[in-house]
């Protein structure tokens, strides 16, 4: 394990050396250590299994240098990195690579400059940083135990599937630049995402727990929740194809936000003309009840960071305000590219993520932190059901894709779990999972909002890094199609 102090010493030493190089104009030295531990659940009551399949981890550390060089009248940029080496030799290697890899990119304006002070400090859990292999394995078994006990108490012992994982991410980073950025960050995050199926009842339920500290992390509760959700869905029915008023629960809203909305609200998508919101800045794109913003400063949320991987303090970036498109997520590169007299984005989302967290090997891209969805007129869940009156409550969807590209805005998905018919303003019979496909459009969703609950829940979907702090949201006239069920 590499200490933060080691990373800070390395970036300071590297910058001191780089400043002496005549051909280097500016440089940003970033060093990181990350360790991703995954405890994967695999329980099947009727098929031989391991319960916990493979407790595993991937670890990496190193240092990356992004530098600008003078060549004639042009300024060139180059990036180089070294793995598992924070010595002077490593710095020489990384700088050599940066020189070898330099190109002239007229869109590159300058390295980031300090903007303000971080809102978050010392928000990680030292216990997580020191967690043992045995303790991590125990967390996985706790999640499994929560689900198994709940199912047994409910009288379900056969055709059970319990899957998902407990994931622990530990990250440390330090950054120092010729633009006077000099900072560090340490984060710990814990997430349990559990799925339970009772196959002979054709039901699926999901549950999750997330946090930054072990004391508030409850994998067993995620297991219980998944089992309870599955049992609640027994006796599911299909709904007819057609347009329905629906409530999207926390998970479906998160899936739509993570796979369709947020990728469309990113300046790199604007540059590539790959967003349905091209030319819409300052225009109404949604119900006036809706606000969407990114905020990496919320203590306790696993999307939070003290600073970005460019050394800029995280903060709030408004994206949709009272239904009007007010901003896009940006890193330093795109913030400068799109800066003009009317629009001056602050690069609060420049991160160097890979599958294992902050990664010195990468140049900064654009990634969300915590995405908050909220209504100006937040209502209760019961009121939302009454507003919908008759329709469908969707609690779990899967494989949500902008099927014709983000620019078109249309997307599709299937309902897989935790869903019910709404009758006379109340939750009625459960829906049969895997029998309904959603075919709709992000513009339709944003512009046909019936209501938004005040209560929100932090939610993460498979393959996404950002946390969506998601309410439940009711939308009118969503196209649902009947499809075949499992082995039908």
């Amino acid at each position, binding site marked *: 394990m590499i200490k933060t102090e080691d990373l800070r010493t390395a970036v300071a030493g590297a910058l001191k050396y780089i400043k002496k190089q005549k051909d280097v104009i500016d440089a940003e030295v970033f060093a990181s250590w990350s360790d*991703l531990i*995954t405890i994967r659940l695999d*329980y*099947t009551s*009727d*098929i031989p*299994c*391991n319960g*916990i399949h*493979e*407790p*595993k981890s*991937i670890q990496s*550390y*190193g240092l990356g240098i992004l530098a600008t060089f003078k060549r004639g009248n042009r300024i060139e940029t180059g990036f180089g*990195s*070294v*793995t*598992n*080496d924070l010595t002077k*030799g*490593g710095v020489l290697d990384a700088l050599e690579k940066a020189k070898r*890899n*330099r*190109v*002239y*990119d007229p*869109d590159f304006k300058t390295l980031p400059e300090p903007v303000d002070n971080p809102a978050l400090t010392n928000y990680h859990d030292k216990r997580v940083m020191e967690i043992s292999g*045995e303790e991590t*394995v*125990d967390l996985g078994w706790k999640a499994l*135990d929560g689900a198994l006990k709940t199912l047994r108490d409910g009288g379900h012992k056969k055709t059970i*599937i319990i*899957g998902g*994982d407990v*994931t622990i991410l530990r990250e440390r980073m330090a950054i120092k630049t010729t633009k006077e950025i000099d900072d560090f960050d340490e984060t710990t995050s814990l997430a349990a995402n559990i*799925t339970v*199926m009772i*196959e002979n009842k054709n039901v699926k339920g999901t549950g999750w727990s997330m946090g930054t500290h072990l004391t508030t992390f409850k994998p067993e509760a995620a297991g219980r929740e998944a089992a309870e959700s599955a049992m609640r869905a027994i006796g599911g029915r299909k709904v007819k194809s057609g347009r329905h008023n629906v409530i999207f629960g926390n998970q479906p809203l998160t899936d739509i936000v993570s796979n369709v909305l947020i990728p469309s609200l990113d300046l790199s998508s604007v540059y*590539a003309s*790959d967003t*349905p919101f091209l030319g819409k800045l300052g225009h109404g794109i949604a119900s006036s009840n809706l606000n969407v913003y990114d905020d990496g400063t919320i203590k306790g949320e696993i999307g939070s960071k003290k600073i970005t991987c460019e050394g800029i303090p995280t903060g709030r970036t408004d994206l949709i305000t009272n239904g009007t498109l007010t901003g896009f997520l940006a890193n330093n590169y795109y913030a400068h590219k799109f800066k003009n007299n009317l629009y001056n984005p602050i690069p609060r989302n420049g991160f160097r993520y890979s*599958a*294992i967290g902050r990664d010195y090997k990468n140049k900064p891209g654009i990634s969300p932190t915590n995405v908050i969805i909220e209504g100006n007129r937040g209502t209760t869940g019961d009121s939302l059901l009454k507003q919908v009156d008759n329709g469908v409550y969707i609690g779990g969807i*899967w*494989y949500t894709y902008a*099927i*014709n*590209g983000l*620019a078109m*805005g249309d997307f*599709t*998905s299937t309902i897989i779990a935790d869903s019910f018919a709404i009758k006379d303003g109340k939750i009625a019979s459960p829906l049969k999972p*895997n029998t309904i496909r959603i*075919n709709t459009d992000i513009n339709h969703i944003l512009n046909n909002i019936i209501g938004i609950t005040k209560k929100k829940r932090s939610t993460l979907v498979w393959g996404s890094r950002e946390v969506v702090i998601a309410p439940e949201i009711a939308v009118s006239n969503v196209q649902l199609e009947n*499809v*075949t069920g*499992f*082995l*039908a």
Partner: protein
Amino acid sequence: MKPRIEILDKLKGHVFETVSTYYKSLSDCKYVDVRLGISEFKSAASENGQSKDVVDDYDASFGIRVIAGEMSSWGFYGQSLGKNELRNEEITNLIVSGINNAYERAIANAKKKQEFKKSADSLTEVRLAKIKVCQDTVPADFEIDPRKVSLQKILKTSVDVSLQMKELDPSVHYAAAGIRTGITRELFCSSEGANIDQSLPLTQGVVYVSAQKGESSPEVCYDYVGDLKGWEIIEGKNCYNLSFLDFALERTRDTIELSGAEFLKTSKDDVVVVTDPHFNTLLVHEIVGHPTESDRILKMETAYAGRSWLFKSMDENQVGKRIASPLVNAFSDPTTMGYGYYKYDAEGTPAKRIDVIKNGILKTFLNGRENAAVLGHEPNGSMRATMSSMVPIVRMTNTAFGPGKKDPKKIIKEVKDGYYIVNHRTPSISESRENFRISATKVYKIENGRLVKLYRGGGIMANSKDFLMSIDAVGNDFKMYPIPNCGKGQPMQIMRVGNGGPTLRGKARLAGC
């Protein structure tokens, strides 16, 4: 100096020796395997004729699987490797430390499994099906060594391609081209005595183009050319028989044409659809490849990528049953060229071709050693990991619909009223892959055997079995294409696989914007 893949010549003996001996010192340690890989690669990216990025670097890592404990259980440890660690003493120490880490997890896991076994009797010891334990060296096969192509040449090619794409028409808003070429060499050593040294080159070009006419939505295209070969791929020896430039310009012309086309409308009922080999590449990937992966069969992917419509239980499944028209064949073959090519999988199992669907009957599943043991099947070597530091999982190889005998032109000519679905775009599949909606780049109306009108924003949707059963014509125009970005696992592993097939004709609903 960056490390070269040849550095493994010096390390392989020590890695094998360490794996062969160290595990014996650990109580109840039943099995260890180590994969140690190093890649040398160069890449370049450009947008609108402007250079954006070049990289000339290496990447190295290792991953260790251990089975240990009274009630045998898995533990895994992976990490990246720096240049200074690619030395005998350092690598030996790191592997010993990695085995200890994975062993500690396996022992902790085994203890808990034993404890839970009292109330969960399906919990079982890990068993690996037997394989032929191999010792072999597989050199990289290419015509033009990726390592001998200069970074300048790669960058210039990328810049030229994106510039010519951008300049093709004023409607092109954005054109990007990326190229990556290199070689990966990986050692696989196991406590059973396997000692495999396998090298694979990879050369890939990617294009991204968006074009917009008037106030209509921009039309966007994203596609790849590539294979496990050398620079000759960029020069035209690829599945398209086009140079990267010509491939990029073809995609750009299509995008320009489409940006002015009418949007397809969703049909109320099924219509006759002729799907081309490029579209069938994604179709076979989603409705045959994934649902025949044995980890889905055994419900291990339920929380992530889903189950399989082909397997409900050991007693109730589709093996040996008709799931497609008698004209339909599908196979998975890592021994043929394509993104799923290899001689040994990530467990050291020799690669082999398997028939997945034969004359419409489901035959078997893709597996690894553990799943093969559970299912009572013979291991067929379908385990891969994106990097050596990641755990291997069941993956498609080169998985495709088999060729038929019919001329594809005749397949279209026979259609009085239907649609020609050309080039895949994006899939959305239901949980057990029993239903799909897949978008195409282009959709043509067919009237009296002729293509009469082009639509954009379209695709097809159907229940998987209904579609496979409806196939009444299979072309003789078989093609294998690269799919570079198949996501699976937790943490997510992005894998390259080969998929393909010939032209097919069946029935499905049109899905429009």
